[in-house]
């Protein structure tokens, strides 16, 4: 399939004569030589759609280096996550996407893309020495990462870039003042939150996501302490109303409504981050990516006082929910091969090390986490990298891999928000589960 495209292009190149010849000649020349060559697709322009964030910043920063290395020019469009997700879905559905390469969240979009068959399969390229350089260290990519990038029938259609574990950010100064030790279990965490909560001084014991949709992942983090996920079996079945799920929802309700700030039902990560960076919250559970702003002197008042801890274990389990992002090429992309090269560069070890250095995220690779050259130039504390390494062995998916995942988050998230308003955990979780069940059944059946 892949070869035939190359050959057809080569034939077209011959037919077109001088016009496109320079580029296509190099293709045919290296197709015979059999070695990987970064310059193989030089002269092409790849349109990339990136979600706002450190990855996009790095890509922009180093695009010149990539151009020198490969001769491939990048056109980078950066838009915020929510809008990017909608744009990607609509453009891929139209069959004529304006981009050749894009980044996306496995936990939100993977299943939808897989079912619709929108992505270019790259299984063969990964095995082809002409298309896979040794320096990529494909073997170093973690199992979880490759499983994210592989469809349920074993085809690779993406490459993983980064994962986000959930970890505990805590304010060491507040902990020391009250003589509280960092909690190892969920019970200890509840006690710590109670001890640290001091509304008269404007200090909350705990802060985290309370707002509909976003809050679901904080709850699934707590749920991992009861040793379960949100769906199970084949065909997938919802288990968000089991006694364990209700117990974890009860815990969520008590932790946030008793020891959280007023108005936490409207808090997303940015409100939580704001409060924590002002030194007004003792503990905050969220994804690994927030170390950079928290340690930024121009934005944060808690620089140097922040501790990073592995999430506490629960009565029945211990987990750190994990979210992965990757890159993929649309099936109908205009410059598939050049886009693939760009993807190799972005997801390769060199860029992974750079992302780690700025605290932009944890790569799905182990080498950069152990590389002293990378670790010595970290712009965030070493403790953060150690904590991430501690989360890796207990990592588990934080959201079900289903098509209507946004609706899942909205429905379950509404129930969780209602809990913060005083609703009963059992009633709400059962109602939400019943409400979402037909949606899931329908999507899995189709």
């Amino acid at each position, binding site marked *: 399939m892949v070869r035939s495209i190359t050959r057809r292009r080569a034939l077209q190149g011959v037919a077109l004569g001088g016009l496109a010849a320079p580029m296509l000649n190099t293709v045919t020349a290296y197709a015979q030589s059999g070695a990987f060559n970064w310059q193989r697709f030089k002269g092409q322009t790849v349109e990339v759609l990136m979600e706002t964030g450190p990855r996009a910043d790095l890509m922009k920063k180093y695009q010149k280096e990539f151009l020198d290395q490969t001769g491939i020019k990048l056109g980078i469009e950066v838009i915020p996550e929510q809008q990017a997700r909608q744009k990607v879905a609509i453009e891929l559905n139209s069959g004529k996407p304006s981009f050749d390469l894009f980044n996306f969240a496995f936990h939100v979009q993977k299943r939808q893309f897989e079912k619709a068959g929108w992505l270019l399969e790259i299984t063969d390229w990964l095995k082809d020495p002409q298309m896979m350089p040794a320096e990529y260290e494909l073997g170093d990519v973690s199992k979880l990462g490759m499983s994210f990038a592989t469809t349920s029938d074993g085809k690779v259609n993406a490459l993983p870039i980064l994962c986000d574990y959930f970890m505990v950010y805590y304010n060491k100064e507040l902990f020391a003042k009250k003589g509280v030790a960092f909690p190892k279990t969920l019970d200890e965490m509840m006690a710590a939150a109670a001890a640290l909560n001091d509304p008269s001084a404007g200090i909350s014991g705990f802060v985290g996501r309370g707002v509909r949709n976003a809050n679901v992942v904080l709850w699934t983090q707590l749920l991992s302490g009861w040793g379960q996920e949100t769906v199970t079996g084949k065909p997938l079945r919802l288990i968000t109303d089991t006694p364990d799920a209700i117990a974890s929802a009860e815990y969520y309700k008590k932790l946030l409504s008793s020891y959280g700030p007023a108005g936490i039902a409207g808090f997303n990560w940015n409100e939580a981050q704001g409060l924590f960076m002002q030194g007004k919250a003792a503990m905050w559970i969220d994804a690994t990516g927030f170390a950079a702003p928290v340690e930024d002197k121009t934005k944060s008042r808690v620089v140097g006082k922040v501790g990073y801890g592995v999430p506490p274990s629960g009565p029945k389990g211990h987990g750190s929910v994990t979210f992965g992002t990757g890159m993929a090429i649309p099936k109908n992309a205009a410059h598939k091969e050049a886009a693939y090269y760009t993807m190799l560069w972005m997801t390769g070890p060199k860029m992974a090390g750079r992302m780690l250095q700025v605290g932009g995220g944890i790569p799905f690779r182990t080498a950069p986490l152990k590389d002293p050259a990378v670790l010595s130039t970290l712009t965030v504390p070493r403790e953060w990298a150690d904590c991430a390494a501690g989360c890796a062995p207990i990592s588990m998916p934080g959201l079900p891999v289903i098509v*209507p995942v946004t*609706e899942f988050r909205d429905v379950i998230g509404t129930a969780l*928000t209602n809990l913060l308003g005083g609703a009963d955990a059992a009633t709400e979780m059962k109602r939400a589960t019943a409400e979402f069940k037909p949606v899931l059944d329908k999507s899995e059946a189709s």
Partner: protein
Amino acid sequence: MAGADVTIAAGTRAAGERRLRPYLLFIWPALIVSSAVIIFPWIFTIWMSLNDWHIGSKQVFIGLDNYVALATNRRFLESIGHTIYFTILAVALPMVLGTISALVFHKKFRGRGFFRTLFIMPMMATPVAVSLIWTMMFHPQLGVLNYFLSLVGLPPSEWVYSPNTVIPSLILVEIWLWTPFVMIIVLGGLASLPTEPYEAALIDGASQWQMFWKITYPLVLPFLVVALIMRTIDALKVFETIWVISNGGPGTSSEVLNVYLYAQAFAYNQVGTASAVVVVFFAIIVALSLVLLWARQKAKWN
């Protein structure tokens, strides 16, 4: 004779048609454009609403099932309730305040031009930018509004962060944003009023209130109705401020129809359901507009 009349009439009609025929061609551009941008999308929306249509999978014709599902959908029905609640407040309060401020700015005083300009500034600002600033001000710990409350000794409010206060808080933004709009329309109306009735009333010894209630109010009523119609349609269609400030939350407590519609179409990719919501929403707006237009007829000067 009668027969001859008919022939003549038919003859002139035929002649008229012949005369018009070359000009009939000129209808086509307008007809094609309006079909392409108005009529076709509408028919297509109705067609989509009759399908089970999820982006990424095949569409299936399901008749009226989308509508049947909506009729029992708790979230949809609640969003209608929120829309009505929101619309009533977001129309009534700017109407009253806008009329009062128009009366104030109709009087002559020093610096009137300056204050008028200042007053209509909010209307000129971009709703999204305004909403972002209000979001910051609403923050329960770091926002400036709770600081103001603490200055006058009031307890802090949770504003848009609590299901109970979210809609009234959003109304605050709407009032700030749209009172000037009502004021401008009413001010225009006041400027066009004749002065004779007031002179006559003064001679008869009428009080200020009597003059307002018996002269100003009935004369300015048609303008008020215009403002009312425009404000109502705007309030029904509200989207940016809610989307930016509360995103329909906490939970679904400020989810109006437009926000629900957006979630269905662009977050869940349920094009079929979203189209059905559009059709219902359109029916509601048309019905309400008819009522308001009828009110406008009633309010006309006799």
